[in-house]
């Protein structure tokens, strides 16, 4: 990504941004986030198919915000996250510059968030075939089978909260899972507590999750927790016509229609 390095250098040298967030070579075959604050560091910037971490998770962090205006090397899911965060008043044009990377790996710089929004709206949020198959498989199971599936899948979870840390939408300064008055979710890893934690996570991401799979990629045990949010995504489509992150307009779960349809309320 020569363009990206060049542009990052320009931005830093001209002081138009204080920090550029991108990817660098990490340990092993992994990439990690890089925070470029001086132009020499910009040479470390890379971009390839291994760069799947959602960098939008950093833009709500106090430590980054304090630095001043930031630029983010943003793939499509990251751009979606940024738009969602902007709609939740977490980021504005004044503190972010989006260096978009298109699905064809081309660099486009956006003047403002409205342009980013226009760009992401060209692409529907789609669930990939492999996960779709898995969802269908679960759908075909009986209720006790599904229960057993999730209890077994979630049992090894030791609540490292990597999923929460990786998620750009999980920026609450105090998460429900950390509450102890009342203690909604037990602190130690228990079969039921784990299920409650992941149900809670999925519910809080309903109508906000943009399906970047960062939670699944961050999970050290590769538990398919992204299936829960994917299911919510499909439900949002089925019941309320789906959603796209947008700068203006109501959020899916903070609004309603008087004629929302259901078939289970007596």
């Amino acid at each position, binding site marked *: 990504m020569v363009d990206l390095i060049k542009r990052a250098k320009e931005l830093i040298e001209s002081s138009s941004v204080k920090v550029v967030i991108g990817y660098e070579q990490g340990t092993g075959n992994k990439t990690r986030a890089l925070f470029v604050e001086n132009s020499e560091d910009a040479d470390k910037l890379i971009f390839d198919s291994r760069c799947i971490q959602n960098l939008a998770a950093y833009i709500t962090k106090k430590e980054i915000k304090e630095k001043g205006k930031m630029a983010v090397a943003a793939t499509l899911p990251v751009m979606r996250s940024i738009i969602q965060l902007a709609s939740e008043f977490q980021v504005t044009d004044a503190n972010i510059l989006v260096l978009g990377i298109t699905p064809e790996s081309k660099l486009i710089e956006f003047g403002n968030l409205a342009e980013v929004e226009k760009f992401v709206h060209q692409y529907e949020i789609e669930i990939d075939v492999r996960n779709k198959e898995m969802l269908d498989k679960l759908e075909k199971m009986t209720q006790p089978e599904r229960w057993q599936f999730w209890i077994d899948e979630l049992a090894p979870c030791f609540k490292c909260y990597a999923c929460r840390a990786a998620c750009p939408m999980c920026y609450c300064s105090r998460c429900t899972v950390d509450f102890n008055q009342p203690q909604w979710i037990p602190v130690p890893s228990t079969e039921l507590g784990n299920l409650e934690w992941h*149900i809670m996570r999925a519910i809080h991401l309903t109508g906000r999750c943009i399906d970047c799979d960062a939670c699944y990629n961050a999970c050290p045990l590769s538990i398919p927790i992204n299936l829960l949010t994917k299911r*919510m995504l499909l439900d949002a489509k089925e019941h309320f016509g789906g959603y796209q992150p947008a700068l203006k307009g109501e959020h899916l779960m903070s*609004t309603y229609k008087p004629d929302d349809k259901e078939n289970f309320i007596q």
Partner: protein
Amino acid sequence: MAEFEPKIVAFVCNWCTYAGADLTGTSRIKYASNVRIIRFPCTGRIDYMLLLKAFDEGADGIIVSGCHPNDCHYTSGNFHARRRWIMFRSLCNFTGIDTNRIKFSWVSAAEGAKWADIVNATVKSIRELGPYTEYKKVAKYPEKEVNHG
């Protein structure tokens, strides 16, 4: 062995279903005594975590009830609640929680008889389903404490 007496927790709104349940009593309509009513200011306040906690604490069934659409004391609480229930119920279903054990209903302050019917029907269906052992097993809730309604 005595017949299984399910424990039912009812989360109801103050303005409609709670008043409706009151009417059931003042109308001297007899209905199953398995239900424990928890009064909320509005259905919009009924957090999904409370439902999970009810099962955790040993409930075999749950009733969630409030004002009919357009009748909410706070104008839109039940509309918001309905959206949440649609998503939550689907997620429960997806994670294998038995959605037959959670009954959602609209009961107005004038529907004392409907409340009795809802409770009786729920008790009947939960009695057929039996104790929620699946959930209790992972919640490690002591079985002996559950069966005595």
